[in-house]
């Protein structure tokens, strides 16, 4: 009885332990390189979370990186031209991405069928990149915009982001935990149920009284907000924004992260996938430059064959595999 109680609470205990480890990690291991990888992992975890939320509503957003670009550019512009403090610039970046997503969603999500939305978002992503490249007076073209690292005064303590990366780590960690909780809670609440219903069987949902577009737009807008914030944060972290940061390949990268992590889990899958692929990607940039697309492509294909529901499926499949392994061996021994 006691053990059963413990077992039911085990996931929660593990989760809390994991969060404590993640919080303490950079204080114990003081390695700037590891820290920078972890921060990138956080950015892409936010990105993949948003991407997965849209996917779970039955839509494939191939231009999600466009919203990252909107968030990044808007944050950079309001920071450099209007002198916004960095948290406000991030918020404005996220909100402007959300507004654009809302306007596009209201038009495009009206059309039934998966492909129109995918094509429209794909085009959007490209359009934003082209605007960023060519609108010299605002975006400075390929040169991009340099953003100075923020200096924050909390009472008498002064945190200068230019001297240490630690604050970035904790900010992105807080953002990931916050939005992971939000998406987890949405998945458990009515919105998640409705969104899943309409993704699974749109026609019947509509005839049961659900206004499909409304909920798709809500999810799409929220996802764009999260993506925009991730973009704005990324720009602050790199102290620079330019067109190459947000190419269409990034959106594909988010799709790969979600496939490898697990498309059908709202939170764990995208985060695991994002961390794994970002880490592998950085390693490969050092040791196997140029092979990255090939390796990732092969990985995705392998996953679709072996673990079509991603790494999160391991918790179900691994025990079965191990069982099967022992069974085969004993069968061979009997012969």
């Amino acid at each position, binding site marked *: 009885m006691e053990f059963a109680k413990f077992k039911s609470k085990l996931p929660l205990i593990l989760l809390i332990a994991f969060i404590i480890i993640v919080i303490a990690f950079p204080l114990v291991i003081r390695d700037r390189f590891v820290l920078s990888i972890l921060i990138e992992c956080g950015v892409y975890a936010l990105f993949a979370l948003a991407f997965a939320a849209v996917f779970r509503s039955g839509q494939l957003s191939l231009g999600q990186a466009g919203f990252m670009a909107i968030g990044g550019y808007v944050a950079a512009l309001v920071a450099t031209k209007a002198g916004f403090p960095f948290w406000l610039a991030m918020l404005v970046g996220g909100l402007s991405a959300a507004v654009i997503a809302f306007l596009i969603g209201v038009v495009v999500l009206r059309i039934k069928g998966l492909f129109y939305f995918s094509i429209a978002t794909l085009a959007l992503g490209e359009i934003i990149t082209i605007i960023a490249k060519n609108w010299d007076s605002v975006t400075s073209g390929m040169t991009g915009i340099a953003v100075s690292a923020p200096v924050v005064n909390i009472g008498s303590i002064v945190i200068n982001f230019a001297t240490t990366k630690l604050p970035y780590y904790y900010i992105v960690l807080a953002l990931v935990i916050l939005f992971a909780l939000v998406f987890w809670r949405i998945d458990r609440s*009515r919105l998640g149920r409705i969104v899943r219903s309409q993704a699974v*069987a749109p026609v019947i949902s509509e*005839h049961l009284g659900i206004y499909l577009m409304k909920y798709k737009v809500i999810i799409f807008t929220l996802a764009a907000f999260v993506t925009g914030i991730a973009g704005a944060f990324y720009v602050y972290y790199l102290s620079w924004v330019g067109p190459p940061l947000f190419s269409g390949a990034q959106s594909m990268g988010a799709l790969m992260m979600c496939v490898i992590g697990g498309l059908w889990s709202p939170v764990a899958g995208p985060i695991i996938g994002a961390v794994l692929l970002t880490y592998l990607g950085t390693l490969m940039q050092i040791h196997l430059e140029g092979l990255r697309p090939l390796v990732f492509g092969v990985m995705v294909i392998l996953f679709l064959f072996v673990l079509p529901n991603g790494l999160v499926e391991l918790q179900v499949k691994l025990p079965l595999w191990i069982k099967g392994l022992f069974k085969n061996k004993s069968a061979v021994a009997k012969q």
Partner: protein
Amino acid sequence: MALLELKNIKKAFGNVMALEGIDLEVNKGEIVGIVGPNGSGKTTLLHVISGYYHPTEGQVIYKGENISGLRPDKIAKKGIVRTFQQNIVYWDTVTLENVFRACYLSDKTNLWQSFWGTKPYVQEEMAKLAKAQDIVSTFGLSDYSMAMAVGLPHGKQRTLGMAMALAADPEILLIDEPLAGMDAGEVEIVLNSIRKIVDKGVTIMLIEHNIKSVMSICSRLIVLDFGHKIADGKPVEVMKRKDVIEAYLGVE
């Protein structure tokens, strides 16, 4: 005044006229059967009433209000709910949750309350669950309530479709071929569940090919042929008419 009134409904797909001016009235408490050969426009008629298609011409008047051209979800909200010819269920979950999700229209709390899991929301969800369980047992699906909906046998899936439609609290229920592909035992179960729906005061429009069952359950029969209404009246009288026999059963 009739509960539902169709005035000169026409529906064209390009050059093909699927419905060529249908007029009909449905009164409260009736069970109206719609029969006719394949391609006579029965399902198109249902699509037009439920908002899946917009009529090319004519009006659908429900409780004195013109509802033609409204979105399906608006029409469902007004009290006209339908089932489908195919078995469509939420394949990602179990039977009970299928019916639970179909209770969407009884939601009163908003998404914000649901996000924070406030007390009114939780109470509402409990009430919905009780309602879903009630409907599941009414339709004899209790043994399957925790089974994945896609795994149900064909007959049970069709029953589930009706259970889900009933969960939306309709005043008029449009049922499209409830008995398609069922064996004798399943037919009896479905007919019984339709009688149970009627007992709840729901008006029913029913498309069905199984004439024997239609005759046994309907209070009125409408015959369609090539987009025209060729007969409308008491089932026994309608089935005696020569033109109906000609159109539907063929002549020697």
